[in-house]
């Protein structure tokens, strides 16, 4: 069975994206690589926070994100989204479509929905979704893992267990999310660095 490791940078950036738009649905893609049965989720590229049910800019953003990932010898390995309501942890229809598209090019693609309730508490706020086994565009299901995701020994882990608490601190104390930009922001101002968000320095831990 394939395992997944979420890097510190990836976790924090997802958190920053959600924190910047607390009352909206936000989404983006995960980039990384696969080796020896582990999918290394190294970074994320944030896409939209606006008109998230409409496809043209999503398609363009995906294409550009893919081009960028390939320039780093990485692939698109998954999708993430945060809903507007803290109690909504379903993978939206648009999310399923995008996740499936990524899966068509990367066999072990995974999707994460942000757990709005866990976000502020400093716990791990990612809920994993994987497609049901079997061929065809089957619905992506919340997968329960044994041991549960993000607990010791699980298939899905954080590279750094301190990522959630660090993410909270970076938002609360440094307001780092103010400097974060996604593709929607970039479309209004092409000088915004949505692909790497270099201005958001995430101190390593």
């Amino acid at each position, binding site marked *: 069975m394939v395992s997944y490791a979420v890097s510190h940078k990836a976790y924090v950036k997802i958190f920053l994206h959600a924190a910047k738009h*607390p*009352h909206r649905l936000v989404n983006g893609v995960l980039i990384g690589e696969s080796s020896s049965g582990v999918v290394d989720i190294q970074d994320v590229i944030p896409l939209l926070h606006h*008109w998230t*049910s*409409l*496809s*043209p*800019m999503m*398609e*363009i953003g995906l*294409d*550009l994100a893919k*081009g*960028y990932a390939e*320039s780093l010898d990485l692939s698109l390995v998954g999708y993430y989204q945060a809903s507007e*309501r803290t109690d909504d942890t379903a993978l*939206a*229809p648009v999310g399923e479509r995008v996740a499936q598209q990524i899966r068509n090019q990367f066999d072990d693609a995974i999707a994460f929905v942000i757990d709005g309730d866990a976000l502020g508490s400093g716990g791990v706020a990612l809920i994993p979704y994987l497609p049901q086994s079997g061929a065809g565009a089957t619905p992506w299901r919340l997968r329960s893992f044994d041991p549960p995701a993000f607990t010791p020994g699980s298939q899905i882990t954080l590279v750094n267990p301190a990522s959630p608490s660090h993410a909270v601190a970076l938002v609360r104390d440094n307001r780092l999310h103010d400097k974060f930009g996604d593709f929607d922001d*970039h*479309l*209004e*101002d*092409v*000088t*915004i*660095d*949505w*692909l790497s968000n270099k201005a958001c320095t995430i101190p390593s831990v």
Partner: protein
Amino acid sequence: MSVHSALEELAKYRVQNRRASQEVFEKGTSVLQKNGHSKMGDEVWDFLEQLALAAIDVGRLDVADQCLRRLSDKFPQSPRVDCLAGIRLEASEPPETALKYYSELLEADPTNVAVWKRRISVLRRMGQTEEAISELSQYLDTFYTDIEGWLELADIYARCNQYDYSLQALSHTLLLAPQNPVYVLQSAETAYTAGDLPLSLKMFLMVVDMTDGDETEFLAESTPLGITVRAWYGVKLCARRMSENPRVVTASASDASPPKHLGLLDELATERLRVAYSSAGQKGDIAQGRGIVFSWVASP
């Protein structure tokens, strides 16, 4: 930040109808602490309403309650304060309680527009989409000029993949506010998602027409900025899809006529995007991701 500048910022947010709740909360509470609100005259009531909403958003219900108390003391039985009280209720009670509260208010006063809209948004939040759509449609039958209502309806439809209905809702915003390029852009993107590429292309071009500099500038000399860049991306995407798949050119649900010079439009969009990414921005910054964009526009 001084009380005076904080108040200016807050007034600006009210005019722009911005929801920046964290900033509003911080500035608003600092004004309260420094007793700035006592010198505000009649504006203080707008300020308290704004702060109450922001406080609810950031989870400080205690501050919201303080503001609400002052407002209801000053304006007893005001429909506007009733609505705010409803929003406060939504923050801590189950949605059914808020729904009941709004229904009672509406029975007493069916013209309370704000409360009707709150009721619809609670229905939506509860997942009762069909009922939300039915009530919103009824609402818009009565209050046709409420653009926010039409946009909400378009959004509800888009979320359930009913893009044709979404487009129909947006068409009313175009009638009500024909000068607003954002509604045209949203319609273009919705038409694309609905599969009507000729219509989508037409509308993206309309956005360019409405927003690309003034008429005295020659196209070749101007740099596309902001919403125009997004529109050119849309033109390029449509042109590409239409040349990849000629069938979509004629399959327009709205009977939009196919473009006569698709190849030329594609070239123009490519050139405009290259210019947008080649020039220094207004602050002299460089465009990001230029190499990636250039390869994207060049690929067949």
